[in-house]
């Protein structure tokens, strides 16, 4: 039985895909009489199956050696594409996280999307999403990881574009796809180059190869940069970060997954790539620099947002920036730790604000207030999520950040500063959002605000409890530091940074009626942050402009120069034929003259040549 479960663990990702396929009759509209609900139930069932299967395999693999599962997918000529799955406790743990969060998000979606006519399509996409993510968690082959990352890109595009009739959604879906696609194409270049250089695409073989490989610095730098650009796009890091902000136009249950585990999948691939990235110091430096820029920049930008989802999505970029720093400094343990705790806390925060959005039908935090007494479960979820995210009280986020601080304490103290700044800024931001949404007097949109129905409340409360239990889970997994070795100053500094952020957020003057400062520098700063440092404008005048111009120029050249030349040849031959026909006059003296002239020209030519 155990062996059977292990051998068939490649089914785990397939369950999600099967669920997606099963919804098709409802999504396409072949079955209408039942309404779209059965499609959702199929997906929930498949998710539960994969959760159970994953859990059983996890139990088996716990404390045992990983047993890679190798599938020879495609063999041709000298190419052997094997799909290798990592059936180990780490991989299975990641699968469990993905499927559990997916199950909660799908339950949540049952309530959140209740009135949407396209419920079946939504669940099809969620099943696809889940399948691709659990595949990524298991994948031990760069080829498979790349393929699944691309599938995630596609499903992100479709989920963001779910409400495709809205103009903002249209641009958001486009940008999400194209930005990620830029990263993916660069990653593909890296994959192809790596496959050629090393002759394999399975991670264990690649690690072996990387230990002995000697590449020229240019090749290794380019390779490293190509490999990291896929995760950069997927994790919304500078300079490919804009899509996550725009993607908040999509339905909220998908945002729950996107901000917690989807971005984590990109980072997970990066962590897997880390032993190869060691070949290129430039790539590691790039990871640290980009991670730092994103972590601090996105934390600042988040503060200026008034859209409730965007305020939180920028903080996702910031935390993933911390993960990038950790990978760049080769501390993958820290990276995994941050990913795990961030995923749980962020998912909870997104569930909480999902409830707020559904109840108030608004995403603008300046229109909210006074929800705490009306929606107690939602408020508690937000508070717990926020505490679980920042380093203040000993929940998950604290321990993850502490691990980072402790790791960098001696070697790279300036990274400790980055961590503390990010922690303070996110505490500040979360306090600010909490005050605007839940405290203060109720406003028109929040006056009649009942607590959400049970389909949404149950997953939210379940996740609240889970977030509270994260330290206990960490304890069980022996991830918490031993009390005797604890770094006292680090704890103090971390708590202090969190407390400062919290205190500032609690005391700063938040006025809902004048959202715009009058002082020019302040106004400028607010605009700068609110519009994300105008990076989108920068793209508009550089990359987008360039592609647009080149394509227009090309089309013009094609139409007028190339095709013009072709048409000119055609016209010229018709014209010459038309003119020559007048030479056929029917008068014999004219023909004689023509012959005479022709013969004399030929004669002259011959004499000239012979001479």
């Amino acid at each position, binding site marked *: 039985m155990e062996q059977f479960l292990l051998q068939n663990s490649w089914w785990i990702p397939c369950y999600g895909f099967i669920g997606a396929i099963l919804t098709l009759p409802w999504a396409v509209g072949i079955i209408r009489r039942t309404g779209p609900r059965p499609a959702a139930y199929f997906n929930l069932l498949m998710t539960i199956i994969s959760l159970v299967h994953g859990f059983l395999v996890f139990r088996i693999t716990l404390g045992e050696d990983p047993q890679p599962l190798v599938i020879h997918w495609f063999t041709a000529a000298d190419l052997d594409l094997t799909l290798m799955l990592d059936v180990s406790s780490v991989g299975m743990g990641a699968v469990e996280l993905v499927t559990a969060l997916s199950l909660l998000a799908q339950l949540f979606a049952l309530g959140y999307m209740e009135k949407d006519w396209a419920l079946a399509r939504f669940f099809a996409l969620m099943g696809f999403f889940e399948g691709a993510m659990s595949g990524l968690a298991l994948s031990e082959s760069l080829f498979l990881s790349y393929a699944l990352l691309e599938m995630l890109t596609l499903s992100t595009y479709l989920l963001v574009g779910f409400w495709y009739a809205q103009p903002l959604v249209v641009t958001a879906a486009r940008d999400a796809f*194209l930005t990620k696609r830029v990263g993916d194409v660069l990653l593909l270049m890296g994959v192809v180059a790596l496959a050629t250089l090393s002759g394999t695409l399975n991670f264990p073989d690649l690690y072996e190869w990387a230990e002995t490989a000697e590449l020229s610095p240019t090749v290794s730098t380019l390779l490293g940069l190509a490999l990291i650009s896929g995760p950069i796009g997927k994790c919304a890091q500078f300079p490919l970060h804009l899509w996550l902000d725009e993607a908040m136009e999509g339905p909220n249950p998908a945002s729950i997954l996107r901000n917690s585990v989807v971005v984590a999948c990109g980072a997970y691939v990066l962590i897997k790539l880390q032993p190869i990235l060691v070949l290129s110091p430039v790539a590691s430096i790039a990871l640290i620099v980009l991670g730092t820029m994103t972590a601090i920049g996105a934390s600042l930008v988040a503060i200026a947002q008034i859209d409730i989802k965007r305020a939180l999505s920028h903080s996702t970029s910031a935390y993933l920036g911390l993960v990038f720093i950790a990978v760049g400094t080769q501390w993958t343990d820290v990276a995994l730790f941050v990913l795990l705790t961030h995923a749980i806390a962020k998912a909870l925060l997104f569930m909480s604000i999902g409830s707020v959005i559904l109840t108030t039908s608004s995403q603008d935090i300046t229109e909210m207030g006074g929800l705490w007494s009306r929606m107690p479960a939602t408020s508690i979820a937000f508070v717990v999520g926020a505490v679980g995210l920042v380093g203040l009280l000993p929940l998950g986020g604290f321990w993850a950040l502490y691990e980072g601080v402790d790791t960098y304490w001696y070697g790279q103290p300036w990274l400790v500063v980055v961590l503390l700044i990010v922690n303070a800024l996110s505490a500040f931001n979360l306090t600010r959002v909490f005050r605007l949404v839940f405290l203060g007097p109720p406003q028109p949109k929040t006056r009649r605000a009942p607590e959400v129905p049970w389909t949404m409340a149950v997953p939210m409360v379940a996740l609240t409890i889970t977030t509270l239990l994260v330290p206990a889970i960490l304890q069980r997994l022996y991830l918490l530091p031993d009390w005797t070795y604890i770094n006292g100053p680090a704890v103090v500094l971390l708590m202090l940074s969190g407390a400062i952020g919290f205190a500032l957020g609690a005391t700063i003057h938040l006025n809902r009626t004048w959202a715009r400062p009058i002082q020019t520098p302040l106004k400028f700063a607010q605009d700068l942050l609110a519009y994300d440092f105008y990076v989108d404008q920068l793209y508009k005048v550089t990359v987008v402009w360039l592609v647009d111009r080149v394509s227009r120029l090309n089309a013009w050249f094609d139409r007028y120069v190339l095709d013009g030349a072709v048409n000119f040849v055609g016209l010229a031959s018709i014209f010459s034929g038309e003119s020559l026909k007048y030479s056929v006059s029917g008068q014999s003296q004219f023909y004689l003259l023509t012959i005479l002239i022709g013969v004399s020209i030929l004669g002259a030519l011959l004499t000239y040549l012979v001479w």
Partner: protein
Amino acid sequence: MLSALIVIPLLGAILIGLLPRVSSSHAQTGAEVPDYSRAIALLAVTLAIFWSVLLGFKFDTSISHLQFVENMPWIDALGLTYRLGLDGLSLPLLVINALLTWFAIYSTDELLQRPRLYYMLILMLNAGVAGAFLAQDLLLFFLFYEIELIPLYLLIAIWGGAQRGYAATKFLIYTAISGVLILAAFLGLTWLSGASSFGYDPSRSQFLPLATQLILLGTLLIGFGIKIPLVPLHTWLPDAHVEASTPISVLLAGVLLKLGTYGLLRFGLGLFPEAWSVLSPWLAIWAVVSVLYGAFTAIAQSDMKKMVAYSSIAHMGYILLGAAAATPLSILGTVFQMISHGLISALLFLLVGVVHKKTGTRDINILHGLLTPERGLPIIGSLMIVGVMASAGIPGMMGFISEFIIFRGSFPVFPVQTLLCMVGTGLTAVYFLLLVNRSFFGRLPVQFSNLPPVQWSERIPGFLLATMIVFLGLQPSWLVQWTETTTTAMLISYPTIGAVGHSLTQKDKG
């Protein structure tokens, strides 16, 4: 065995020709003789599909040389032999030829004018293409290559759009020039090497001086380059596609362009391996130019059909890249890419055809919100997303694995050119995403609020093609096993470039 693939459609065409004349106004009166031409055409092509699938099953994948050979002297004085043969290069193309002809006939409007002539011409086209893929005699290939022109010219010139005369003539002149160049190269090869027949013989060119080989290969390249088409010989293609009706576009993109790439592999690489290895760096650069030029031009198009047409040009560039690299893997990839491009572009053209039929326009600046359920075209839109994503190379579909094999096979030989071609896949995403975003997302304008409903008969071809694209994307081995032995064997007489590529890999490994 093999002649049946030519004879069945021809018999069908003759049978349709013998049918009694049906008045074109039979739709109104209804009392006239029913028109059987469509049914006969479908039956003939279905038979051809079964026959080619049967051949596929009987085909021995472990043998690299020709199978089911038919040899019949025809005109001995000329050296012309009726010699047909099948190998792993032509087998998938034959199947796709039969398959796409079926789709083309199935998706033809049933109220078409002059149906008998139309279906006869399509069947003749099918026979001509099948003959060209089977011919193992240079002159015989040329004959089939030219014969296929006539029905296609008429199909565009009679049932095309407003500018059909211009487009059809342009197509005819271009392809006739291509035929003349190919003939010149074949004659040159045969006469200069002193052979007495036109039989296909890869070893024939090896005693010719390199300069002569280069000239002959250059002639051949331009000839097939027109058919493929490669930039700058491509301007007939967008016009022909825009003016041709939907089924003809499907055949043109799905099957007829493959004659060019097939010829490139069989007669360019196959007959002139030595000259090919000299020219191949330039061919790779040519491929890059084609890919990027096609992709960039596609971005600026507003007509859906033109966009798909330019994307064809870009995707054909990958085939040239793979052929230039000439590693076992890249050649395999080119065959795979031919099939995947055939299926994907057929799907895209079919869907564009439905959109055009329902809305009356193909302009992406006018179309909006077609995904809207109830009043829009939601299923056509979903299939369009599948097709577009397959073309952009999203894994899980055919477009990805074929491009991956080409890139993986070409990278050791031409790293820079391969990377530049990969930029093309990114650009594919750009223009196709623009297409979907502009015309299918957004709000449905009032002018399109009363679109005629889409019949299931219009969706079924799209569903079938999409299923095939996904299935072969997940199970590429099924297709590859047919081809692999042949493509590997093709390169046995071609050691030079493979060695170069290999040494490069070794050097990189240090």
